[in-house]
């Protein structure tokens, strides 16, 4: 069975390759960075495609069936197991999905997809921890920018600016950082076109 791994996150695709390499019946093909998903499917003729949901070029696989001009012989369909709907929900939650390229009776994709789900879920947990750390930093930056703009607009000091945002947040039952984001988008003079 030929499996195309479409994921530009090299750490994750390495880990997935290692995981699946244990199964000798699988031939693994990696999508190289910058190659369009649909071109890779055309070129490598895989049976199964595992796709990172964050890829913007997933739409192209939809077009294989719907558009007559897509010149692909074998239909590509999102893998759906009618007996196990949670499997796909888990896959989407983890950030991966699986397509069958059908010209022969579909084979059992479930073990493959389950392996991918657990791996993606693990990466997602790590990523979420990183994101949280990153978010704390960028939230601090955002609050600083909003305060600076407020101080300039209202000609006041930092303490007063902070009090204003805190009061606004309490009144609107929102987080201070959300109030600051709204203030920035609504008050910042639109930058001149940088074309």
């Amino acid at each position, binding site marked *: 069975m030929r499996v195309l791994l479409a994921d530009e996150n090299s750490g994750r695709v390495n880990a997935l390759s290692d995981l699946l390499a244990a199964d000798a019946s699988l031939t693994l093909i990696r999508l190289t960075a910058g190659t369009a998903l649909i071109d890779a499917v055309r070129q490598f003729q895989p049976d199964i495609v595992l796709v990172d949901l964050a890829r913007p*070029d997933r*739409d192209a696989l939809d077009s294989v069936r*719907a558009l007559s*001009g897509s010149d692909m012989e074998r239909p590509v369909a999102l893998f759906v197991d009618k007996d196990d709907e949670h499997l796909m929900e888990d896959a*989407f939650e983890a950030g991966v999905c699986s397509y069958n390229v059908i010209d022969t009776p579909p084979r059992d994709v479930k073990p493959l997809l389950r392996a991918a789900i657990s791996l993606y879920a693990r990466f997602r947990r790590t990523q979420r921890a990183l994101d949280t750390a990153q978010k704390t930093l960028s939230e601090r930056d955002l609050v600083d920018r909003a305060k600076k703009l407020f101080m300039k607009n209202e000609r006041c000091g930092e303490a007063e600016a902070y009090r204003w945002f805190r009061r606004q947040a309490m009144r609107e039952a929102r987080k201070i950082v959300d109030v600051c984001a709204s203030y920035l988008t609504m008050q910042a003079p*639109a930058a001149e076109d940088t074309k």
Partner: protein
Amino acid sequence: MTASIRIGLLRLADSAPVLVADHLGYFRRNGLNVSIMVEPSWSNIADGLAWNRLDAAVVFPPLAIMTALGRRGRPVALDPLLILSKGGNTIVLRHGALEPQPNGQRPRLAVVHPYSTHFLLLRRYLAMKSSTADDLAQIVAMPPDTMLDALRDDRIDGFCAGPPWGAAAEHEGIGRIVAGSSSIWADHIEKILVTTGSWREANADASEALRSALQDAIAFCNRIENRDVLVRLLTAPLADGGLALPLGATREILPGATNHDAMTFGSEHVTAPEPMLSEMVELGWVTPMEIGELNFSL
């Protein structure tokens, strides 16, 4: 009581009512706790609705119908809540894109998804150019915010997409707007907001609150004096809750602009959806019976 809802949308100017309702507090005022999910592609919107990652989405009717029927996965109950916008799409071509090419290759034209109003518009446009429209071009699908790059890199020769991407291509001088919703299919329904059946069942009272918040936002979006606020919201960085749209092009296509394909939000003066449904039948996507059973009333 507060109802939570995850609304999916793409980086497009016609997503504005949802952003406005969020930033101006209309959702909150109506007891809604909204998470806006900016998705990378229409496939992610459709799959998100089908596989329980989204409760609602800003979407065009053909994709909503095909998703509800389970043509991309499992069927999912979808209720159209209201019409958010009409028209606003444009077709952009590189100079000479439809002329016979020296290597005999057909030009590649992109639409945002196979099951899109954009595909229907492009098909009508090509049919006006040639009786053998299907042979005139190869049609491919890609997300709207990737089309400028694709056109610049010669991966496509033109596209049909929502605002502001057509105007943005003209601004950059990489293509020319040759037609748009206004000239091909005036006042067609473009974006609607759909909610999943499961969300509506669990939040019976919140549907009306959601509709009301979005109607207020639509009224705000249509007032010309609010254009600067909309421009700021739509062009703000993603991290600040904006959509990072290009500034000059966005300013050009909001209500009040002189552009033929400037946006109009809401359902006023939209044409009936039946011709759109007939074209979907004609293309073999759906049968009249399936549409009847779906009870998808716009």
